[in-house]
């Protein structure tokens, strides 16, 4: 997700996907696919959130807000920490249902068969 994308060599599929991805027993392949998509989407939201943060901070400092100034924006230590907190909250929120399965596994029901 880059504001400026320059054309390069056409992607080679050997560079995009890794060789040998086995099916995990017990894991529904459709859930596995969705997991990959949700995590990728969350990554994009996180990037978008940081881009918005750069907009807000440039605006607050009455600096010009253009694709170039946002690309060149360098977050200082305090801004990095603020962004890390937002990122952490997003990850915990989205991943909460994954860990909720831990509680289900401890409710006394045997799901081992």
């Amino acid at each position, binding site marked *: 997700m880059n*504001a400026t994308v320059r054309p390069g060599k056409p992607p080679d599929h050997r560079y995009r996907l*890794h060789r040998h*991805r086995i099916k995990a027993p017990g*894991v529904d392949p459709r859930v596995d696919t969705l*997991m990959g998509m949700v995590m990728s989407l969350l*990554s994009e939201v996180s*990037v978008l959130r940081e881009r918005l943060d750069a907009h807000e901070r440039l605006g607050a400092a009455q600096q010009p807000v253009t694709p170039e100034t946002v690309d060149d924006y360098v977050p200082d230590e305090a801004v990095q920490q603020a962004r890390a907190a937002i990122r952490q909250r997003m*990850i915990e929120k989205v991943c909460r249902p*994954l860990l909720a399965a*831990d509680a289900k596994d401890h409710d006394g029901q045997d799901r081992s068969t």
Partner: protein
Amino acid sequence: MPAVRIHPMMPLSTHDEAAEQSFVVALKTFLATQFDPAVRRTTLGIAEQISAAGEKPTLQRLRKRLEGRQLYQNWISSLRAAQELMWQAAVDCVDRQRSELEALERSAPKLGSLHVDPGFEVPRYLAAGDVHMMPGGYYYDPPGDEHSVRQGAVFDKAASLYSLGRQGGQMNDMRGQTIVAHLYEIYPDLQPTRILEMGCTVGNSLVAVARNFPAAKCTGLDVGASLLRYARARAAHLGVALDFVQGSAEATGLPEASFDLVYSSAMLHETSHKALPRIMAECYRLLRPGGIMVHLEVPFRAEMADAYDLVRADFETRYNNEPFWMGATEADYVRLAREAGFIDIHAGFQDAALGPPSRDQVKGMFGQPNKGGYKSWYIASARKPRQ
């Protein structure tokens, strides 16, 4: 461009790429600190049930019961998704600046050398699956793309993300420093003038070793031309002259008795049962009489593993494409070294060196209890008889 460039070959990140990479690190940290402990609790609980039933909690029995658990299924899926995201973030960043990186390779100082073998055949254990899920693995080099540094750049960019910066930051050289600490303590008489690293990847350990032994001529061997092209340029930009050769650790093609020190750093677990004795024999052949062999490995031994350790190792083996992870942690390196003809054999855990070690501060770093990932490494070392 926000990133700090630790050396000129390190791919730079745009604002958005840095945000994406920070996300991957945060996600992997979340999984390691929140999800792994939950799976540990569940696994140890299952192991207790198996033991209570009078059976041994073997990996097979654990897996059979875990595979029905939603928590375990989610864990596998999310770990794989995070790993795939990490590589994608590195790949996208490198591809955007591929031509600049190739230009930097061409303009690198004329230090060291590179010897690639267009007819080289990659060992099957590396060609069958892309190790660590890295697209293209260690070896891929597109036909006709003789200037590619892509696999090296992707590996270097991702390496600091992969270990969450705990292997020596962006220089990623903790393992090299740890090997030097081991040599200083166990073989204090060694003054190597010719050093070989097998499985050197982008030369991050080799640069550290070379800087600790500035009088030595250092050679790095690995299977990928793109990886080595990047490694040569990376070292040269850092002002270190290293020679790189494409080849297999089982049969390097290098002259016999031509090195004082032959070592590897987290390479053996990327090989195979059949390869291990061949690599030991090749080390013996390459060393001059009295020369030293060192193999650093992951800080994990199968015989010391609890139920969760087994399940975690199983993930690496099956899903992170490290098919020999388990085998390497079960291997008897003392026996293998002895059978290859070595003497003065040592095997055990070594405290990690966080920076260049000094000779007067290494006492007692070897032979310590395992302190865990990035704090300890497993090392097997030995000497070729002087006569």
